[in-house]
């Protein structure tokens, strides 16, 4: 297969660093969305969720109504079982479907569950998901204890950067540096600060801080990103 002459001079997969390779893959993968025809097909499958449009829909809602009542007991049992022991997902009854994230439902009412014929599955809440295995509060409290307010400032820097406020992000990063010289999230703080500097076009400082970072944290996962920032990628 012949290639466009311009492509012949372009950097190739084989010659790319691991970081460049991964970025190229991730960039290309963004285009891997389902086709319009596929979405139409999926829409047809989702369509019966409307009870007004089909027999299947009426059946679904009938089942939802029945299960809304019957699942109260089932979910109660699942919840008790899960709360009691977050390590035995396989013991959960196989009759209810997934739940929304816990953060969205502090006191969830019993959801209407799907019948086995539609979704013959175990509640995801009863499976060892990231949520189920999240570390307990004491661990979080321990992290906070090293430098109170550190995580909130890291979040604020991140938020400012995402909002396009590089100046604000940098100011908060300096504030955090002054407050938590050797906090737990020094690497994140530095990465965000360097991102902010890159967006502000402060190339010399970006390079200097990138060098310092790499010397201090040579095995950090942020090295890739920081290195590319130093090389001029401030996307």
């Amino acid at each position: 297969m012949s290639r466009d002459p311009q492509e012949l001079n372009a950097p190739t997969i084989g010659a790319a660093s691991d970081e460049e390779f991964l970025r190229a893959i991730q960039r290309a993968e963004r285009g891997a969305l389902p086709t319009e025809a596929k979405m139409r097909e999926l829409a047809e499958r989702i369509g019966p969720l409307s009870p007004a449009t089909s027999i299947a829909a009426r059946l679904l809602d009938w089942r939802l109504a029945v299960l809304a009542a019957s699942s109260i007991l089932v979910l109660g049992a699942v919840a008790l079982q899960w709360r009691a022991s977050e390590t035995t997902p396989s013991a959960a009854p196989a009759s209810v479907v997934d739940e929304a994230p816990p953060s969205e439902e502090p006191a969830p009412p019993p959801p209407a569950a799907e019948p086995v014929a539609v979704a013959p599955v175990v509640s995801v809440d009863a499976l060892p998901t990231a949520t189920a295995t999240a570390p307990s509060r004491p661990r979080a409290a321990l992290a906070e204890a090293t430098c109170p307010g550190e995580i909130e400032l890291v979040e604020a820097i991140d938020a400012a950067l995402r909002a396009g406020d590089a100046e604000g992000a940098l100011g908060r990063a300096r504030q955090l540096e002054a407050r938590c010289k050797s906090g737990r999230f020094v690497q994140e703080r530095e990465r965000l600060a360097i991102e902010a500097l890159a967006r502000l076009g402060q190339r010399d400082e970006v390079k200097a801080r990138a060098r310092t970072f790499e010397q201090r944290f040579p095995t950090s996962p942020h090295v890739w990103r920081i290195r590319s920032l130093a090389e001029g990628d401030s996307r």
Partner: protein
Amino acid sequence: MTRGTLSSLHHAPALLPFDRSSIDVATVFREHGAFVHRILRRLGVHPADVDDALQEVFVVVHRRLPEFDRDASMRPWVYGISVRVASRARRRRWSSREVGAEEAPEPIDPTTPLDSVAAKQASEVLSVILDQIDDEKRAVYVLHELEELSVPEVAKVLGCPVQTAYSRLRAAQVAVADAVRRYRLREGI
């Protein structure tokens, strides 16, 4: 966000609008359906299971939508449901002993320019790489690095403390870097 119908986009029957808001399943599907499809793959749902998993996501959306906080961002909420559905879909396939049914992707020609990798091939290669890391790290990595959610949003989606999300992200980045290196060694690219 305005109310919509699937038929407006895909000529499918209109869906039931939820009376206490201007958001309905059709709107959620129209705005997030394609991304849910993609994130399910990113989270490791087998290609043969993605359609079923997507349908399951929207069944849950349909059911939970009346409880959705209208002031909150929809995307993390939908992704939270997707993460849980994906987790279950993976386990279901694993327990049915159908793991490994997915064919290995064609190796990428090393002379391919960086900006000319085909989306489908990239998706397959990325799956192979992400399959090397555990589910918790994968979820954090996908949500932050690929879906570009902020770390606090990731923490909210996963229901874990923010510092845990940061720690998992750091570990995930290391694991992905390692997986990339091993993949390239193995494939000779």
